[in-house]
């Protein structure tokens, strides 16, 4: 789960990071009064959970409260990578002598948290990694002893910091690490961490992604979820315990297992179709969950065919078939269905759908081909 800049800033501030705190505004007038309260020049920043908002015009400097209102007016309601901006953060503008990148991530190979920093801050770390990897300083955190002062110091020296800045950096790095650990984060980032003209360090942007699997032990964090950033379909699917992601194609996919679901999408594409979604019903799904999943798929008017691909292990084919049956009956849909159902209770499942208007496939590749054809013909054949 990703959270907004202003939310991440509130968390980081609790861990002692030096953050010039701003205010969130949902209307230009509120941006105006926030800027008045802050005093001096401010930055108006779109709060959206996608990258590249700066390039998209979602971050603007405003010298006066009036200007803050204008900029907020321009930013609120704009669309960045498909997401409508509903909130802006109005934050004090800060003079910048130097920009640093500081981030904590999970290193899968080392099975550890890694702290990454770069003297080239303010730009995308991926870009730095690609173009000037020597500018990135890393240190791996031993989980048994946590991030230690000496590690943070070494990184600070590696960034060319000196004197009191080293001490400030150590405090910031340790605070960020603790914020990461205490909140089950998968990413915690300050980019840029700026050196102000007076030499002090300030965190003027903040990003935090949370490990969905860890949310259960942080009940408060779940409230930070911005449901506006999900599609209605994704929200409903999540509520039903389904792994669902909206895509732009026209073949709805219902699959058990994440890997098989991806392979199904890939096969659809390979054989000329376009997947309309990723959908993993998980293991051992019952009929009602399957029916819910199909209702969500069929809500999308661009869906011209549905491919049900089940390799039954824990998941029982007859349960899936019953879910398909329920969905077909309830929705009365005319969209053609292609079913590929093998495994546990396969015979019972097939029997259950014997009368239904579905095409049958023996293999995934066959199913993908039939689905692509069904989009063309509007009929389920096979």
């Amino acid at each position, binding site marked *: 789960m990703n959270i907004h800049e202003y939310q991440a800033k509130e968390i980081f501030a609790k861990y002692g990071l030096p953050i010039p705190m701003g205010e969130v505004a949902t209307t230009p007038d509120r941006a105006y009064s926030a800027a008045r309260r802050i005093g001096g020049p401010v930055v108006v920043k779109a709060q959206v959970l996608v990258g590249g908002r700066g390039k998209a015009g979602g971050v603007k400097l405003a010298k006066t409260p009036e200007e803050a209102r204008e900029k907020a007016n321009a930013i609120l309601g704009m669309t960045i990578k498909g997401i409508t901006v509903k909130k802006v953060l109005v934050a004090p503008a800060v003079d910048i002598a130097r920009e640093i990148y500081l981030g904590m991530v999970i290193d899968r190979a080392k099975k550890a948290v890694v702290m990454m920093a770069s003297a080239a801050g303010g730009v995308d770390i991926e870009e730095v990694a690609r173009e000037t990897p020597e500018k990135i300083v890393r240190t791996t955190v031993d989980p048994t002893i946590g991030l230690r002062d000496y590690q943070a110091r070494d990184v600070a020296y590696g960034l060319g910091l000196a004197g009191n800045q080293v001490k400030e950096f150590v405090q910031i790095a340790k605070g960020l690490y603790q914020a990461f650990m205490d909140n089950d984060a998968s990413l915690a980032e300050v980019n840029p961490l700026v050196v102000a003209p007076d030499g002090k360090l300030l965190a003027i942007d903040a990003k935090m992604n949370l490990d969905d699997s*860890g949310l259960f*032990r942080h009940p408060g964090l779940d409230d930070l979820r911005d449901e506006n950033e999900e599609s209605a379909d994704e929200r409903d699917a999540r509520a039903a315990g389904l792994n669902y992601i909206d895509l732009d194609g026209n073949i709805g996919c219902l699959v058990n297992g994440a890997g098989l679901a991806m392979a199904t999408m890939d096969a659809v594409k390979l054989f000329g179709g376009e997947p309309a979604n990723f959908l993993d019903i998980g293991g051992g799904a019952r009929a009602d969950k399957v029916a819910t999943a199909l209702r969500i798929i069929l809500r999308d008017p661009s869906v011209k065919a549905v491919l049900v691909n089940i390799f039954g292990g824990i998941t029982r084919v007859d349960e899936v078939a019953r879910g398909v049956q329920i969905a077909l009956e309830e929705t009365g849909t005319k969209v053609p269905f292609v079913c590929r159902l093998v495994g546990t209770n396969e015979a019972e499942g097939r029997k259950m759908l014997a009368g239904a208007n579905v095409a049958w496939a023996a293999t995934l590749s066959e199913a993908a081909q039939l689905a692509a054809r069904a989009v063309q013909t509007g009929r389920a054949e096979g």
Partner: protein
Amino acid sequence: MSILINQATKVVVQGITGREGQFHTSQMLAYGTQVVAGMTPGKGGQMVLDVPVYNSVAEAVKEQGADTSLIFVPAAGAADAMLEAADAGIQFVVCISENVPTLDMIEVTHYFDRKGVRLLGPNCPGLISAGQCKVGIIPNHVATPGPVGIVSRSGTLTYEVMFALSQRGLGQSTAVGIGGDPVKGTNFIDVLKLFNEDPATEYIVMIGEIGGTDEERAAEYIAANVKKPTVGFIAGQTAPPGRRMGHAGAIISGGEGRAEDKIAAFKKAGIAVARHPDEVADLVMKAAGRS
């Protein structure tokens, strides 16, 4: 022959009294696996499918000589269950539980390394040494004994490939699902090493997916060390970046983890790359000179 488990393996099932634990225990018993004990705190003294249940893994080890553990406990208790097994003298732990927090897995995997205990998973289907032993949830009917070693990040996709292989008369030595989480006990390379040394494994199938760079490192390992014909498949070629595709580990982020990079790494390492799961079996057939 096989890797990791065989007829001698003695399994304790942690969470045996739950719905899943009980069902899969019955499946494993049906497959011939020696499930010697179950463990559920507070249920010690009960019997489940004629298997004695204990309050602790230590008791199961002491009383029944369990050497391998299979874990079906909810995510919140999974880390504790894994650590208990390692602490009790179990040598191989297979964790099926999904949604285990990544920070828990960092703690657990480091502990296992220190103890010298092997962990498979979490969020994995376990493994099966065809015709000998199954520890996990891979459907019994998809496996047939034979020369193909399979290692995979995905469950159902593995079953799919095993099924396709079996239908073509290509059996498996051992099929290992390493799981879809970003931080896990056993990685591709760990299994590849074992297959490389296993005389019963003549061909290797490696099923990856988007996210991380495990496949790239595995490809390098294969190029440098493995002479056995290897077929690869990567799921998620059509996945959009920045979205978690079901598995916690299946996400393209920071320009890392793209299917195209993994496929290129496979090709560079001389691995035959299948475009869809059925083709995996076709390519193994070809490598075996049987197509």
